[in-house]
Structure formats: C-alpha cells, structure tokens
C-alpha cells in the first residue's frame, strides 16, 4: 500500500518538484511580509488614534533659580488653562481637534515638560463652571510648597468642595517616585460661563518636581457624563487627562 508521495525524479531546474521547492520560501516570505504589513498598518492606525495635541508638549519656561527651605533649585513656570468646551483655540491652535467640541478640556495641550527636582510654578486660568466633588478630599491643596495655592490673589489651603470647577492632580506612573503627589482644586466660575465671556479664576501654585520619569495627571472633578459623571470627557484621554514629562 505504499503511496507515491514524492514527485518523480526530474532534472534539476525544471518540473513540479523544483518549482514547488523554489516557490515555498518565496511563498512563506510573502506571507510573512503581508502579516508584518498588517501589524504595522494596524499599529500605525492605533498610534494615530491616540490623541496627540497639535500644540505638542508644553515645555516649562526657565526663570532662573529660587531657594526653597535653604536649597537652591532651578525655577520654571508653566501656564495652561481649563476651558468649558473644546470648540475654541489658543493662539490659533485648536484645543482638541477631531474630538467632541462640547466637552470641557484643558488647553492648549495636555502634555507638559519640567526638569527634575526643580521648583515649578504653575498658573492656571479656569474658565469653566462646576459643582460638587465626588470625594471632598480633593478640596484641599496637596503636595505644593507650603501646602498652599494662590487663588485670585488670595493664599488658600483648600476651597469649598461644592464650588469646584476642576482639579489638577498629578502622581507618578507605576514605579516613578511613589511619594510624589500634587493635587490642586480649581474653583468654578460662578454662573454658566463660556470661553467668550472671558471670566476666569486664576490659580497659582508651586511644587518641587520629582525624579525623572513619566507622571500622569488628571482632573478629579466629575465634569463628565454617565456614572458619577466620570464618563465622556473624563474617560476619554486628552480632555481631562495627560502626562507630565519630568526630564
């Protein structure tokens, strides 16, 4: 019952067996290339889908050195804002292009860069309305120098938890400086504000940046939709969430 499974002997360079033998590595190479192209293509699509602000990364401005508790530190400043919707633009650059224009958003970008172990002074203009926090714990200013922030010129350690617009809460990504934590509540603008009317709250605070690495920030005020108002813009990367690159 022996079955002839091999092709009969043929002179080299011709015939089925040789053609098959030559086509196999080529066929395999083609399959592999197609697979890699598919992976790369899908990867590029997903990478492109990841929100990346057209304004790029906001690098903190160097303003010299400062002394905190007797230690001289590099001093940098950052300015950014929180808007009630993403329909506007800052210096001609749209706040969140391709997104939902009705959703509140930080701007001009959600990526910030500061040097390590430096004194960072942040100024935020908060244009949005707000309400009550889910967890009143976030009403306090935490992790800043002196535990204070300057809101509209007044030094405060906390604000009314029912009058919050957003918060700016930063912690290290896993393994990066576990002790680092900054959370500053940003009070709401009374009434139903729009970007146009120009009313805003000014919040200024300083903190000492941690070790080099990636830090994640997000807003802990429920300014979204659905369950606990943490859906919608809160759950979609780029509106109320971003990264701080400490270099």
């Amino acid at each position, binding site marked *: 019952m022996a079955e002839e499974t091999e092709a009969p002997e043929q002179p080299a360079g011709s015939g089925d067996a040789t053609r098959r033998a030559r086509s196999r590595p080529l066929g395999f190479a083609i399959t592999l290339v197609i697979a890699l192209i598919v992976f790369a293509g899908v990867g590029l699509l997903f990478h492109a889908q990841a929100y990346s602000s057209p304004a790029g990364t906001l690098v903190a401005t160097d303003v010299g050195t400062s002394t905190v508790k007797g230690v001289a530190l590099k001093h940098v400043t950052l300015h950014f804002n929180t808007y009630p919707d993403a329909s506007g633009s800052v210096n001609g650059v749209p706040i969140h292009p391709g997104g939902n224009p009705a959703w509140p958003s930080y701007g001009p970008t959600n990526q910030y860069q500061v040097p390590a172990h430096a004194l960072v002074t942040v100024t935020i203009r908060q244009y949005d309305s707000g309400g009550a926090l889910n967890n009143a714990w976030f009403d306090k200013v935490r992790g800043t120098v002196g535990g204070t922030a300057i809101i509209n010129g007044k030094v405060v350690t906390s604000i009314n938890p029912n009058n919050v617009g957003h918060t700016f809460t930063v912690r290290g990504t896993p393994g990066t400086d576990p002790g680092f934590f900054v959370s500053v509540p940003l009070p709401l603008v009374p009434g139903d504000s729009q970007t146009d009317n120009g009313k805003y709250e000014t919040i200024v605070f300083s903190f000492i940046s941690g070790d080099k690495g990636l830090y994640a920030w997000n807003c802990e005020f429920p300014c979204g939709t659905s369950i606990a108002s943490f859906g919608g813009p809160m759950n*979609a*990367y780029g509106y109320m969430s971003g990264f701080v690159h400490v270099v």
Partner: protein
Amino acid sequence: MTTDLAPLLLEDTPIGPTAGGLYRRQNVYTGLAAGIFLGFVAWLVAHALWNSSNWGTDMVVTVTMVGWVIGFNLGVGTFNAPLRWMLGHDQTYDDELYAAGVGQGKKRYYKFCTDHKVVGTQYLVLVVVLFAIGGTLAMMMRTQLISPHSSFLSPNSYNAIVSIHGMCMIIATIIMVTGPFTNFVMPIMIGAKDMAFPRLNAMSFWVVVSAIPPLLATFVLGGVDAGWTTYAPLSVQAPPAMDAFSITMIVFVISVTVSGVNTIVTIFTMRAKGMTLGRLPIFTWASLVGAALSIYAMPALLIAFTSMITDRVVGTSFFVAGQGGTGWLWENAFWIFGHPEVYIILIPPVGAMLEVASTFARKPLFGYKVTVAGFVAISALSIMVWAHHMFTTGWAPELAGPFMVTTEIISIPTGIIFLCLIGTLWKGRIWTRLPMYFVYLFLWNFIIGGVTGIYLSDTPADEYFHGDMFVTAHFHYTLLGGAMIAATAGLCYWFPKITGKMLNERIGKTAFWMIAVGIQVTYFGMFWEGFEGMPRRVAFYDPIFQHANDMATGGAYLLMLGWIVLLYAGINSLRQGPDAPANPWHSKTLEWKVPTPVPLANFLVDPVVTSDPYGYGEPEPVGPLVMPAPDPDRELVPNLSSDNPLVRGDD
C-alpha cells in the same frame, strides 16, 4: 428510470433555471450592501427621533447596529425561506437543492448555503479571520508592554484593544470546533445526510458574520474600556461603543443557541441505523455536551446584555448603585454564563483531540464510557462554580467555601479525561504525524493550565492572584494552550477530508515547534509577571516587572510567527498540496468511509452501523460500516424536479 449501476449524485440533479428564487441573486456582497443601507436608514430615523434626548448617542448607535444586523441578514438571504412560507409561497424541491448549493460551484461559499459541509468550511474561514484579528490586537498589546511607560498607545486605545482582543478570541474559541468540525464532520460521523435544521445552520453562520462589524466598530465609537467582561458600572459609564458591543453579544448568543439546539436534535434524531449512543464517537459526545451547555449558559448572557442596553439607553438601573442596582448583579449574570462558557470552549476540542489520539495510537479509546461520564460531570459541575470568579468581590463571603469546593471537585472529572488520554497512549503504536504532535502539546499545556487553576480556586491564594497576570497566564494556558491546540489537532486531522489536500507536514511541524515554544515562553513570562504582582489590563507598569514582560513579549512574537507559518502551511497545501485519499489516517470513524470530496448527500446509501469506531486491534467481524449492495433497478435519488415526466404528470 436509471439502469446505470453508478448512482446519481444528488449534486448532479438537474434543476430549473429559476430554482432558488431570490437566492440566485443573493450573496455576502448583497448582504453587505443591504446591511449598510438599512443601518444608514436606521441611523437617520434614530437621529431624528432621539438625538436630543439624554441617551441620544447610545440610542442612535444601538438602533443603527440593529439595522445593520437585520439588513445584512435580509440581504444575504437568511430570512428568505420563513418569509416565503409566511407569504404562502413555500420553497420547492428545486429551491431547496439550489439552497444546498447545487449548480453553483465555488460561488456557494459566498452565499447562504444549507449544505452543512459548506457551512462548516465557511465557519473555518471565519474562525481563521477572527483569530487573525484577535492575534493582531494581541500584538498591539504586547508591543505597548515592551517598555514600562510606552507612548505607542494611549490608555484609551489600550483598554479598547484589551476588550476587543478578549471578546474576539472568546467568539473565535467558542465557534472554533463547533463551527467547522461539528458542522462538517459530525453529521457524517453519525451517518446522517445533513444537520436536522440545515437552514438554521446556515443562519447561525451568517448571523455571527453580521455580529462582527459592530464589534470592530467599537474602535471608532470611543472604544470599550471595560475589558471583555465589561463589569458594570464601568460599562454603563463607557462610551457608545459599549452599545455596539452589546448588540454583537446579543446577536452572537442567538447564533450559538440556535446552533446548539441544531446539534442536539441532530445527534438525537438523525443517527444512522445501528449507531446507538454507546457507539457514538467521542467527538459527537463532546459536541452534544458542549451544545447542551451552551443552551444553558448563553441565555444568561442574553439577559445580562439586554439589561446593559436598557441601563445605558433608557435609564433602567439594574447595575447602577444608588438607583437600586448593583454591579454584583452583572458579575453574577455574566459568570453564570462565563464559567460554563469556558467548558463550551474546551469540551468539543477535547473530543476532537481524543479522536486524533485514538487514531494515531492505533488503539481504542481507554475508558470510553467513563470519559463520556466525565464530560457530563464537567458540564454539570461547571454550572455550579461561577462565583470562583467573584471570590474577591466581597459578594457573599460565606459562599466562598462552597464555591471553592465545587471548583476543586471539577478537577476530578477533568482528571478522568487525562486518564482516558494516557490510557489511550499506553502501549499504543504511536504514529507521530502532525495531528498527534498537537495532542502531546495539549497534554503538556493543559496540565499546567489545570494545575494553576487549582491554585486560583483556593480562595486565600486567589486573594493574592485575582486580577493579576497569573490569572491571564492560567486562562491562556487552558484556552490557547489547551482548547486551541486541541482544535488545531482536529484541524490537521480533518484537513484532508475538508479540503481534499494533504497538509504539508514539514511546514506544519516547523509551525508546531514555534507555537509550542512560543506558548511556554509567553505564558511562563506571564506567570512570572503574576507572581511578582503585576495587575491585569494595564498599559503602563512598574519597571520591576520589566524582565518578566520582556519574556512574555518575546514569546508572543514567536508564537504569532508560529501561527502565521501554520496559516502559510494551510494556504500552500490548498494551492499546491497533493490530493488526499479518502482515508489517509486509516481511521475507523464514518467520515473517513465517504469519498473525498464528500458528496452532497454524504452517503450514497444510508449506512448501517455494527460496532463503535474504536475497534483497533480487534478482529473486524463485519467492519464498522455495512453498505447494502445497490439495487440496479431502484432509483437511488428520486428526481423530483420539474424535468421528470413523472412529476410533470405527462407520461
């Protein structure tokens, strides 16, 4: 009247030029067009009616997806027969033959075709496509995890990829054996001409096809960020993608339940004469048990996802605390489905694997009756273990003990399966062809998967391991290393019968080794991650987990490459492989007794069975199949088409 000794093959029956009616113009492309059209119309209507309401977007997405599903199925012809029946214009015999694919050649694979062999082949292609999609998504995840804080994917995209990878693979693994092999092979194995409900069979397939685009559409609807288990209330909070996801699952459940009913009725009512339940091949038993489990478990998922849609779209509060609901309700409903579901995934492939083991050890199955009892016991017990997925939820801590007991007891019938397997290997004459390679790999992998499952069933240990990568490694070992590898054994085994070509063994064996090594490296890497305490479903991790992740990622790339090589082996063999004889493995089950390619009616004459298909080493008194000699005067296939003067009435 035919006086020819050669019987008229059913597929050669001449049918009229209008046979089939609307079917003649319908195929997957008309389905696509109709689906897109009706989906668009549904979108317009929903947009007009509900856009300004609170849940506007959710309602619009839900209605659009429903429109797509109905449109696609209308377009491909799923509803033709019942609609015609309702209109009093039932199908004629010619129409039925056309629906079975007569006279269409290769085109029938793109259409609604009631021939179980065509449906099986269509399922096989769908399964390969689903694994390709799920595998690509897995590669995205592993690429992100190359470094602890990678900027390849945003946290949103990663969570969405995790969820769809999971659900795509679950869909694929549920249908990977019951789709291709239960449909193609099982009816032939029991001596039947087709499934009990051929139209429902085709419907099951096309309904699954219509469920896949909504699943993929989730990526552009905001992404499902709640994992494949979509725990509430996170899933109630999720973007409108979750509505599309829910529609996919509801539609999928309908398909699997219908398919399960079809399988059970077929096995009970369409067995050939002499095929008693005690002579049923183990793969048929496994398909039966899997089908019975699915009609138990699937409805639980249907209820869960229907409630999810109403929670999201009309504001019920099944799962929302503070409005009278609880996330625990979701978890219970989901896992009441979810645990039997893994046995729905596992048992049919194990049945297929045991067929391979018996054939390639040239021995009867060891402990056939005990193994069947084992399958039944596993399924019965699987209904009572679901809350071991909820040990750490805080729900009913007093029930942790009982669920620990039922879960650990399941290891006893599972052990019987291994007894059957090694008993079959014992003193066998092991024929190490490609299908048998995968049997050994299953054995190695499933022991590891099963043992690590025992660790997790211990509640105190689960309090460390729940939600970390150890769990992920465990279920990949059992589902991929176990069920999928067993299914691959079945694929290599039945490849000659389904395709008519022999699978290239050299390429196949290369693929085997890459897959085998890839599985160990990837998932031991994940066990390492789990031991160290890395949580699941994270796009960013603590650098202390770096080495373990390197191992898992490297292994994953090798594993993926192995599957690609296997895919290549299949395609290459299809195009250039040697033709397969009817019974290349000299196996004794009925599907090998019919010619390759298999005729439309499977058997030219109804077979009569006189023994079970495991008579290796035993003298063959009459053989497992007796075919009565054809009576040359008897018309074997009645010609009921209008060409037949007897039918036309003018004789």
